[in-house]
């Protein structure tokens, strides 16, 4: 493979890994807990900005970019701080967006939050350098490893892979746990879940915070490899790409979501970048966005459960809990019937 091709492949792999992490985070919120976080990309942006300003050092007084704080902390610290800031901000947003609201209004408040966050980051120049954004963000460990640019790319591929495994482990632990079950119960029927003693607000809040931390983590991984980060990198449409991946792959199913992350942002958006078309600038972009929107609508209509649907979870009742039967040989059927009821209707 030529080195240019290797470079390209490594970048695609890194992006894919980061998309996987982001999709798992969003799946925890939307697929598992039913929080339609239309501001997901804003939390990724928070992670990216935090990791950037904590690794770039203080802003130069005469420099071309201005931002607040500014420090050059050693390698894992900016990422850890990004994750923490993502969690705290998610909590703050959740306090407003998740309280006492119907679920669709919650989604709209989050969407508005995303739009306004873009607005503020664009207009407050001293805050994060306005619409020009941050650039020349250093690569973590670059000076320490002293690798050629290409070798560094492959190092980062490995690093992203490890991060992916970590994210998958966290998400898997959560969704497979009783907490994950409680989140799914809130998603499926919040009133029934509340009647059974589940705190609906707390469940959604946990999903929002953990998902927000994962979002920030993905942003912190993304920003050094892109090297620059501006409000135009995280317009709300990017959240819709992730939603499209979730819907196509199968919301609620971590593996389905991974499939969606490969198909939608990976193949679909990267693949079309090969099309050379000398139309008006922005035309190809517009067509891509139209197709993303149509894809979401078509999936929601024809296959709302996605390509790899969430597997219905059944809880077998202990036979002793069943009422005594006069026909013991029917008990098996009865048990099966109950299990069916315990499974999810969808």
């Amino acid at each position: 493979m030529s080195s240019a091709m290797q470079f390209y492949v490594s970048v695609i792999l890194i992006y894919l890994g980061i998309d996987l992490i982001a999709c798992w985070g969003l799946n925890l919120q939307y697929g598992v807990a039913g929080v339609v976080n239309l501001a997901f990309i804003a939390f990724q942006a928070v992670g990216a900005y935090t990791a950037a300003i904590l690794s770039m050092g203080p802003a130069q007084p005469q420099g071309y970019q201005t931002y607040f704080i500014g420090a050059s902390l050693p390698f894992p610290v900016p990422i850890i701080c990004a994750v923490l800031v993502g969690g705290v901000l998610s909590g703050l947003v959740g306090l407003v967006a998740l309280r006492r609201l119907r679920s669709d209004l919650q989604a709209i408040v989050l969407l508005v939050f995303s739009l306004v966050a873009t607005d503020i980051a664009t207009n407050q120049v001293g805050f994060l350098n306005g619409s020009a954004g941050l650039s020349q963000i250093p690569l973590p460990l670059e000076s320490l490893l002293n690798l050629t640019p290409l070798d560094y790319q492959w190092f980062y591929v490995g690093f992203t892979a490890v991060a992916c495994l970590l994210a998958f482990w966290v998400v898997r632990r959560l969704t497979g746990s009783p907490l994950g079950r409680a989140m799914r119960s809130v998603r499926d029927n919040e009133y029934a879940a509340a009647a059974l003693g589940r705190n609906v607000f707390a469940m959604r809040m946990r999903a929002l915070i953990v998902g927000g931390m994962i979002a920030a983590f993905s942003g912190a991984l993304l920003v050094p490899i892109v090297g620059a980060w501006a409000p135009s990198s995280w317009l709300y449409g990017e959240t819709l790409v992730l939603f499209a991946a979730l819907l196509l792959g199968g919301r609620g199913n971590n593996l389905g979501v991974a499939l969606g992350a490969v198909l939608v942002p990976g193949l679909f958006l990267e693949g079309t970048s090969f099309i050379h078309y000398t139309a008006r600038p922005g035309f190809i972009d517009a067509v891509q966005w139209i197709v993303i929107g149509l894809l979401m609508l078509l999936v929601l209509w024809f296959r709302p459960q996605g390509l790899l649907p969430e597997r219905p979870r059944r809880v077998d009742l202990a036979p002793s809990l069943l009422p005594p039967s006069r026909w013991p040989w029917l008990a098996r059927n009865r048990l099966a019937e109950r299990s069916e009821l315990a499974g999810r209707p969808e």
Partner: protein
Amino acid sequence: MQLFLESIGFGIVTASVLAIAGVGFTIQVGIANMFNLTYGTVMIIAAFVAYGCNAAGVSIWVCLPVAAVTGGVLTALLHRGVFRPFLRRGTSPFAMVIVTVATGFVLQYTLQAIWGSNYYTYRFSRGTTHHLGPLLLTTAQLWIIALAVLLLLAMHLLLSQTKLGKAMRATAADPDLARACGIQTDRIAAVAWTLTGALCGLGGVALVMSTATFDFTTGASFMIVVVAAAVLGGVGRPSGAMVGALIVGLGSEIVAAVLSPDYKDVVAFGLLIVTLLVRPQGLLAGRGAATAGQVEVLGS
């Protein structure tokens, strides 16, 4: 002080535009119990159609009915072709948000594919400047305010005085009960969507006339203020949307004049958050409406 007074004049114009748009939006929430997030984009599509007529040499005031028809037809088609089929399938409210966002996205980028990312401006005479007490307003701005007052009055009379309005309110309050009383709720809903779509189209042209330039994203960002105005007054209440429009419109223009015009949307967002924290049922909601976003009966 002069700046402050001027911003009040602007605020009233913005509030008028916002009231036209917000009332339509909130009635849709009332009728269908869903938030139609394509609304802002439909506004701008109507504005683009009006731009097409205007560029062909037709007066912008003549283009207004064209925009109203565009908005009405497009909204009715969206309801018939997209929203209603999904609703009939029992799509959950939060999945409906995704449906409307995705639809709006498709529409918005279709606009970009056709018109590009350029800014457009209407050709019309803004008229002379009038001193109304301390306020300074151009003739065109006065006409926008008059249009808003006329439309809102007509909407109020329609909802409160006519049989159609009564049927719309009944459909919003309880569709099953309304159907049991012999109201053809499907037809009433179709009429309501068309009418609100017309309001949406008119709001789009009024918006562009008041802000001077627009591109394909103008509508999507205007949704922030529309949602803020609707929630502020109590979702599903036309009178609430009017009050919300006045507060958001004045508030954002005053801040724009005093601080910076970049913070208009931030003010709307701030008002939205304060409302959700302090009085999530909206300013005008009655005592019974304890839960946030509980849709009220139209016009009550």
